[in-house]
């Protein structure tokens, strides 16, 4: 259900610092809202994010209910070699979504 959008440069020179952007569509229900009948709406959020570059973890994040819906992240890494950059989100109940992008490093 969660749709993912990534921004990874397709090419980079070795040693370049590149910006990676990732967005996942998710409501991030904070657990503090009430429905139309006043009933509490249970918390339903993504709590962990991890980015790996050729299998090596390069960035991790953990989210609380204070992160906006459709969590967006932008961070940096050093382009080292041609490979796959994988982005992985983990829900509070353990469900996992992931997507990846290829980068060519010259």
């Amino acid at each position, binding site marked *: 259900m969660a749709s993912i959008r990534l921004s990874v440069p397709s090419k980079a020179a070795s040693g370049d610092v*590149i910006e990676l952007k990732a967005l996942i569509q998710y409501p991030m229900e904070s657990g503090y809202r009430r429905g139309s009948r006043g009933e509490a709406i249970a918390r339903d959020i993504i709590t962990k994010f991890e980015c790996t570059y050729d299998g090596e973890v390069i960035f991790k994040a953990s989210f609380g209910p204070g992160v906006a*819906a459709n969590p967006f992240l932008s961070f940096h890494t050093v382009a080292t070699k041609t490979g796959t950059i994988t982005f992985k989100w983990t829900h509070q109940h353990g469900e996992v979504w992931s997507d990846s992008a290829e980068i060519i490093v010259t």
Partner: protein
Amino acid sequence: MIGKPDKHPDFSRRGVLGLGAGLVSVALLPLPAFAAEDDMRAAQVKLFGDRPINVGRVNLKVPPIAENGYSVPVSINVDSPMTSGDYVKRIAIFSPRNPVSHIADFELGPRSGKAEVSTRVRLGGSQILNVIAEMSDGSLWSGTAEITVTLAACIIM
């Protein structure tokens, strides 16, 4: 014993008036309006331990006025060379006014190249957002940014 029933020393006019004034001033003291400030400190201690926090090296870029507290862009930049010997290990965002003070934290490393992270957060009102960065040598640095929130998250629901 039945000698002088007229004056009780504890209830002089001046004493009673003074007591009344004292009670009024206690009642006028504001309620702990920033109870969440303590929550923020507790959240910081939970994450980083009770270590001294230096001010500086952490720069925050936020809109001065956020019309919608549901999604406020926050950009964090930490002054660090990001080499294998000196880099930013962790960055955490804290709010003194949200129901949960700890908004998010990020783990970086020497491979990050640049200690710059952006995300979007929810804010439960106008406040001074607090960001703490932990360096590879274990020192903690902090930066703040004041945001006026027109439509707060968590209130109108």
